[in-house]
């Protein structure tokens, strides 16, 4: 049988108290921070998962910002294309109106309106979004110069929607008549005066149709961006949940453990206090 000695008892109860204190301190830290993983060594695997989740979350935040940017530019494109379409339609109405009137003044008025629309279109084709011409690719000169020549470079402006896909968020001005409209409208304007504007109808219709096509494409891309945006939002909330599940504590569990730890600690304290209270000395006279 092992001898029980005073110092031995003290050493043992001290060790037990320290173990109990360490355990309490760990639980206290978890309760205070609300986190199960306060440093990598608390759970290396969990910490590694956390870092991956945070990486994904960061990438998603970026994709969400990219989508916001894409949405802004696409809305500008959509609005501009619709205005261009309505102005070109006005030109078409003027051509039709000119064919039914023989009044020279009326024709001059119609012709002058076409010239004025040409000026408007010049501005519309050079529309900028955040400092960049939306129909000029990446050209620093914009899309259309003052004499109506296309000066864009057709370089696509793209946005990363997610890890694997990018979308184009501009329209190549040359495909929607940025270089042709000026000459065509000059021709139409002169034609209205002369009464032979109808010959330009086909060319104008093909221009209008290219604008409609571009607008349709923009709509489709907008749709894609919106879909991707909601997917990212859904993913992000999933990631937030996963991160919380991985890192956060279950308060009920920690607090229960903590109170049972407290009971154990108090018991250890009580025992330690009593251990050396009695010895043979108490019974010697």
């Amino acid at each position: 049988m092992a001898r029980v000695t005073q110092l031995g008892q003290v050493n043992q109860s001290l060790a037990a108290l320290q173990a109990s204190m360490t355990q309490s301190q760990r639980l206290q830290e978890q309760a205070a921070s609300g986190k199960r993983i306060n440093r990598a060594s608390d759970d290396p695997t969990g910490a590694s998962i956390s870092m991956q989740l945070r990486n994904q979350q960061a990438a998603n935040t970026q994709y969400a910002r990219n989508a916001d940017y894409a949405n802004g530019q696409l809305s500008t494109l959509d609005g501009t294309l619709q205005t261009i379409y309505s102005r070109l339609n006005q030109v078409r109405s003027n051509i039709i109106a000119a064919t039914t009137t023989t009044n020279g003044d009326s024709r001059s008025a119609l012709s002058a309106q076409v010239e004025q629309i040409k000026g408007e279109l010049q501005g519309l084709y050079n529309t900028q979004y955040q400092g960049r011409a939306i129909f000029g690719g990446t050209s620093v000169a914009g899309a259309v110069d003052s004499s109506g020549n296309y000066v864009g470079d057709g370089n696509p402006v793209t946005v990363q929607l997610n890890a694997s896909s990018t979308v184009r968020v501009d329209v190549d001005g040359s495909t929607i008549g940025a270089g042709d409209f000026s000459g065509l409208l000059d021709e139409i304007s002169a034609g209205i005066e002369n009464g032979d504007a109808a010959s330009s109808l086909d060319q104008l219709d093909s221009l209008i149709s290219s604008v409609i096509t571009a607008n349709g494409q923009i709509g489709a891309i907008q749709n894609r961006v919106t879909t991707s945006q909601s997917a990212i939002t859904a993913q992000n909330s999933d990631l937030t949940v996963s991160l919380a599940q991985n890192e956060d504590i279950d308060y009920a569990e920690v607090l229960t453990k903590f109170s049972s730890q407290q009971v154990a600690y108090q018991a250890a304290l009580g025992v330690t206090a009593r251990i050396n209270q009695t010895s043979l000395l108490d019974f010697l006279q």
Partner: protein
Amino acid sequence: MSFNILGNGLTGLQASQQALNVISQNIANASTPGYVRQRAVLQSQQTTPGAANVYTGHSEQFMGVKVTGVERISSAFKQAALNSAVGKQEALEAQAAPLDNVQGLLQEPSDIGLQNTMTEFYQAWTDLGNNPTVSTTNGAAAINGASAAVVIQDGASLAAGLKTLSDGVSAEFGNQYTNLTGIVEQVNASVLKIAELNQRIIQGTAGGDNVNALLDQRDTAITDIVRLTGATSINQSDGSVQVSVSGVTLVQGNAYNLMSVTGSSTLENAVDNPPGLLVGSVRANPAGGQAAGVLSALNTDLPRISETLDTVANGIRDAVNARHSAGYTLDGTPGGDFFTGEGAAGLTVAVTSADELAVSSVSGPSTDGSNARGIGRLVNPSVISEALGGATAPQSVYSGMVTQIGTQLQGLNTAIDSQTGIVATAQSAVDSESGVDLNEELTNMILFQRSFQANARVISAADEMLQSLIGMV
């Protein structure tokens, strides 16, 4: 009947007194650390048989009792087991402490660690790439100054973050080196003490003195050295003890070799000139004790962490520079390096103004932001890995390092927990053997008190007998 009752009684009184003396010493030292309980060894005395006594017919003569020595009740085996367990625990704790400090520096996983700084840096590039210009005038595009400033600022933050970590690891190395120097000083103090005690114990033993208190002191000094270096000790027949670290002798008899620290005191030179311990002029590689833990931090853990941080820094620098120098500024000038410098401590942003940022992929004046977006895509580990020719992505190297430190620390903490249990068991074995039990001492005290009383009674009885004899005359 020979009349030795008085003499016997006297020896009984003396023995009881001496035994009580030892008991009082035990009680006084009941809570002295390192005190080993002692016990008076009693032996009955008798003359050797010779010619038969003419009066009694007995040949021997009773000579009472004698205290032949004071026994020191300790088990060298149990003490050695405790020392070795403590040495291991100290080694584990000393290795865990610097890793824990480094882990504290890293602040991972969280939203404020280096991982987040890296992500923010790449995000800044993507933002700039999405929106590279504020205006285009006269055939020249003006860069989006606000976004560009964020890119440069975040680049500087990333470099600063890496430098902070690298400096932290270097500082930890310096602290641990100082720690090692302190350990060596304590070892040398104990070495001198043991050599001196060896000398006194050899002399005392030869002279038949009680050297128990000296043995206690020497045991405490040996425990200190074991705690510091995991040394081993062998008891010699002359009462001295030989102490050695990894086979190199520190103390033998009253001769000793002092310990010293060798090798570089800075992390930068540690690879070429690793820190170590010398005993005299011989290299010692302690297997346990604080020194073992500190040396493993100095020679393995801290250099590895520092090297990993350098890999991260150089990887980011190379990948970003490769992309950056492949692009063009908005006015069409080919891009240069974005980062410069070597390693985590040296990394700095080379670009000084927003106009130097190679945001475009077009080799002429342009509003293109695709090169900046390309740099932003480096946030994706597979993209940066490809840019580095298949090397592991810096962010993966970094998170791998965090996980590695975490795993190592978790392992060490588990080992410390179980070693604490082993130490407690070994400690209670030693306490149980050598500790003072007050109840036992008090029982013995009663025994010898009674013995003293009885012997006094014997003397008084003898006195009465002598009185009656004298009265007859």
